[in-house]
C-alpha cells in the first residue's frame, strides 16, 4: 500500500453512516436493487480484474447489504474500469457497474480523491493518450 492510499484509507474510515444508510445511498445513486442479488457469482466469474481484487464483485454487494462499511476501503471499487461485462451477464439484471460507481461516488463526493495527479511522472503525461487521463480523473477524482 502506498503512502497516498494509506492516507485515503484513514480519511475514508472517518465517513459516518447510520445503520442501513449505506445500502440506501448506494441504491439511490445506482438506481439498482441490491437485495435482488442471489450471490450466484456470475459477475466475479467474468470480471477481468478479479485476480487483483481484495473483495469479489458479488462480495461487494453482500458487504453493502450487510452494512459492512469497510467495503469503502476495498481496492475492488477502484479496480473496476466500467467494462460492463458483469452488468451484461447478471441473471438478475443488476447493473453492478453502476453499484461500483455509486461506491466510488460516495467517497469522491466527500472530497476524498483516490488519485494524486501530481504524482504522475511528466514523461508519462506526454506519451499516454489523453482519453486515459480524462477517464482516470473522471473515475478517481471528485
Amino acid at each position, binding site marked *: 500500500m502506498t503512502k497516498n492510499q494509506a492516507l485515503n484509507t484513514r480519511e475514508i474510515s472517518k465517513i459516518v453512516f447510520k445503520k442501513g444508510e449505506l445500502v440506501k445511498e448506494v441504491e*439511490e*445513486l*445506482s*438506481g439498482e436493487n441490491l437485495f435482488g442479488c442471489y450471490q450466484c457469482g456470475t459477475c466475479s466469474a467474468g470480471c*477481468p*480484474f478479479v485476480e*487483483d481484487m481484495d473483495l469479489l464483485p458479488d462480495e461487494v454487494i453482500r458487504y453493502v447489504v450487510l452494512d459492512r462499511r469497510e467495503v469503502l476501503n476495498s481496492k475492488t471499487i477502484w*479496480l473496476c*474500469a*466500467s*467494462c*460492463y*461485462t458483469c*452488468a*451484461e451477464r447478471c441473471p438478475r439484471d443488476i*447493473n453492478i*457497474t*453502476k453499484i461500483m*460507481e*455509486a461506491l466510488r*461516488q460516495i467517497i469522491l463526493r466527500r472530497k476524498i480523491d483516490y*488519485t494524486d495527479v501530481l504524482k*504522475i511522472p511528466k514523461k*508519462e503525461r506526454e*506519451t*499516454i*493518450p*489523453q*482519453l*486515459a*487521463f*480524462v*477517464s*482516470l480523473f*473522471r*473515475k478517481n477524482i471528485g
Partner: protein
Amino acid sequence: MQKRILYYPGCTLKTTAKNLEKTAYAIMQALGYELVEMHDWNCCGVVASLTTDDLMHHLAPLRNLIHVEDQGEDKVVVLCDMCCNTLKQTNLRVKENPDDLKTLNAFMDRENDYKGTVKVYHFLEFLRDEIGFDVIKKMVKKPLHDMRIMPYYGCMLLRPREVAIDDAEDPQILSDLLTILGAEVIDNPFKIECCGSYHTIEEKQLVSRRAYRITSYAVERGADAIMLSCPLCHFNLDVRGKEAEKLFKGYKQIPIYYYTQLISVALGLDPSVYGFDQHMVDPTLLLKKKGVLHTRKIEI
C-alpha cells in the same frame, strides 16, 4: 457528387491516434464520401455518467449533439470507441428521459435546445450499415491472403447492450470485415475482454498482464497480428504489451493494427496515410513478409 458526412473526432484522434483518423479519411474518399470534421466540438468526457442524479456529466456530450443539429445534420460518425459510447449513452438518456433533457437544455441557456434528431454512428457501424461491406469487398486490390488476424473488440463497441453495435458475447463485425479483406480470422474468447483501460496510468503492470493474456492466447491459436478499433486498446496492447516482454520470458508482442489501416492496405490507398510510424511494435515487417505492403499508390 460526393456525399457529405459529419465527423466528431475527440481528443486522442488528434494526437496518439492520428493514423486512425488519416486512414478513415482516405477510406471515405475512396468510397466516394467526404468526411467533414464538425466545427466547435468539445471533449465528450470519455466515460459515461453512471449515477442516477449526475446530469452534469451529460452536458459535454449533449453540447456536441446540439452542435451537430446546429450544422444542419442528423448523422454524426465517430472513430473513437469511448467517445462513441459516451455520445450514444447521453443521446439515449435524454431521449428516454424528457425531464432530464429539459433540465439540461435550461442549464445551457446559450445553446439551442437539443431536439433529439441526431443518430450517432461508430465508423465501423457506418461502413457496415450505410455503405455495406460488399461495396468495400469489390474495391479490394491487395487481399490480405495468408494473414492470420485476431479481431479484438474490447468493451465500448459491445456494452452496455443499449448502445452496442454488435452482439455482446459473440460479435462478428470485425471478423466479417477481415473475411472480405481476404484475411484468415483467428477467433479468441478474449476478444471481448477489457484491455485495462485507464489503469494504464497507475497500474501499468496490471495492463501489461491483460495485454499478455489477450495476445498470448491469440498467438497460441496461430495469429500473426491483432486488429482493433479503439485508440486506448491500441495503446494498451501495443505499448503495455511490448512492456510485458520484460515480465514474461519468451513472450513477443505481435503487431496491432487499426481496422482502418488494414482496409487502407487492402484497398491499395496512398501509403503516406497509414501512419505505421506511430506504433511501438513495427507493423510493417509482417505486411512486407506477406507481400501486401507497397510503397507506391496503386492507380485506381
